[in-house]
């Protein structure tokens, strides 16, 4: 009984905390009479969400599918590179330092270059989302493959298993939990990439909307944009978390049932 109650409390915790945060936020804004132009409260933001529902929905859709395309490319490239890095020492030695260096470069720095190449709009946003989000996938897939137990490899190799057998039967299934864990991180990063690019170089998307709203002093709308990005990222994160549990339940088991 006690544990059931505790479970319910755990489930309610994020909601309670969110509501509490909003209340405190609104209280501060009302109490100190903070101008909406500086720091709007939740009520002002909600009003603006409703007022601009239609344009927000349009821009949100633009940001969403841009992100998903960039993310899809990141998954494909990340998986490919991850398998290459995780299975070949040669590729690992050659490529890994370059990947690390590349990852350290702020991806915002790429946006102006992409704009020169592709013009402003969707393409730089897709590419920025891709560039920012593929790295965790590479690292995780490579780690999953590289941490294969050597004994297991010996068992299979002594039977004459080919490299591809070991990869398909053991390596890839084993690295799935790592892969799905990286998807959760990557999808949120992909949103960051899209919005950054839209902010700098686009006429569409939530990033552009926030930029435009900011320059016309509609602060509540800027915050409404932030809110929408947050909700989209959270929803996608949750979707991949569910997918992860479905696909790799064996890696997230509770206690042992042994006898």
């Amino acid at each position, binding site marked *: 009984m006690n544990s059931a109650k505790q479970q319910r409390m755990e489930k309610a915790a994020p909601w309670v905390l969110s509501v509490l945060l909003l209340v405190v936020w609104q209280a501060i804004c009302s109490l100190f009479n903070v101008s909406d132009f500086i720091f709007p409260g939740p009520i002002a933001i909600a009003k603006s969400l409703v007022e601009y529902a239609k344009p927000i929905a349009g821009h949100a859709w633009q940001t969403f599918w841009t992100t998903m395309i960039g993310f899809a490319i990141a998954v494909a490239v990340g998986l490919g590179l991850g398998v290459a890095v995780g299975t070949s020492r040669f590729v690992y030695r050659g490529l890994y330092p370059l990947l690390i260096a590349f990852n350290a470069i702020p991806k915002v720095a790429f946006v102006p270059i992409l704009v020169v190449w592709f013009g402003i709009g969707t393409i730089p946003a897709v590419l920025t989302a891709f560039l920012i989000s593929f790295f965790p996938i590479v690292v995780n897939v490579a780690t999953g493959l590289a941490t294969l137990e050597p004994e297991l490899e*010996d*068992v299979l190799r002594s*039977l004459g298993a080919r490299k591809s057998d070991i990869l398909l039967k053991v390596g890839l299934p084993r690295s799935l939990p790592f892969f799905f864990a990286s998807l959760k991180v990557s999808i949120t990063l992909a949103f960051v990439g899209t919005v950054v690019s839209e902010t700098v170089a686009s006429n569409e998307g939530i990033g552009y909307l926030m930029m435009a709203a900011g320059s016309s002093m509609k602060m509540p709308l800027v915050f409404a944009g932030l809110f929408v990005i947050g909700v989209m990222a959270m929803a996608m994160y949750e979707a991949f978390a569910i997918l992860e549990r479905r696909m790799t339940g*064996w890696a997230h088991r509770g206690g042992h049932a042994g*006898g």
Partner: protein
Amino acid sequence: MTATTNPPSPAEAGEGRGEGARALVDFRNVFLAYEGHTEFAVEDINLSIRPGEFVAIVGPSGCGKSTFMKLATGLVPPTKGTVTVEGARVTGPVKIVGMAFQAPTLLPWRSTLDNVLLPLEIVEPYRSTFKRDRAQFAVRARALLKTVGLDGYQDNFPWQLSGGMQQRASICRALVHEPKMLLLDEPFGALDAFTREELWCILRDLWSAQRFTVILVTHDLREAVFLADTVYVMSARPGRIVAQRAIDLPRPRDLEVTYTDAFSQIVHDLRERIGMIRKAQAPA
């Protein structure tokens, strides 16, 4: 098993045994240094294993016992000397072996049955007909699981089984393709004493029934003496075979035999020899 005849190895000739019996595995002056090391991991190994023989290799940890296993299965080529299996010089994986280790290394996303079936998906001739004959193979795997007392657990996942049960399943996986040679690397090292003795008996019964050749690597002298026909003692790095002892306790051996004087005497002898090696090698 093959048409080629194998001249008796020095070890065999020296011991004056195994006349007429062709060796399944034959090591001649085998040295191995791993890449990037100048020191040998194993040195001047000479031994010969008859088909159906149960061999145990004992020695202190880090003595190259696992290296020996890799040489016998063709996973690594010797730096010097030759390893012969079934009369043919070993140049790559020999494909007639099953292996089990201290860690059960079962795949957590596969059921126990599917784990046991794994080698059949890899090794010929089963590989090419696996899809067609899966049902038939599953019957065989289930029968094997039954002999080790895992009847009714075939659909459980490995992580739902206890350590001893996982190790039984691991041994089934090593045997499902009916290998001629079973290699065990401290397979019972992580189990409690009761489970260990239970598994000794299971291994003994499997071996008596099927008469595959076994190479068992262990630090447990009682285990070695109880199960093996021949015990080899290896020294610490570089690994050398410093003693060989035929265990002539009558078969079938019951666990009771481990409490007899004859048994204790052999264990005692072996322990003494290992003690001597350790002393000789201890840093001054």
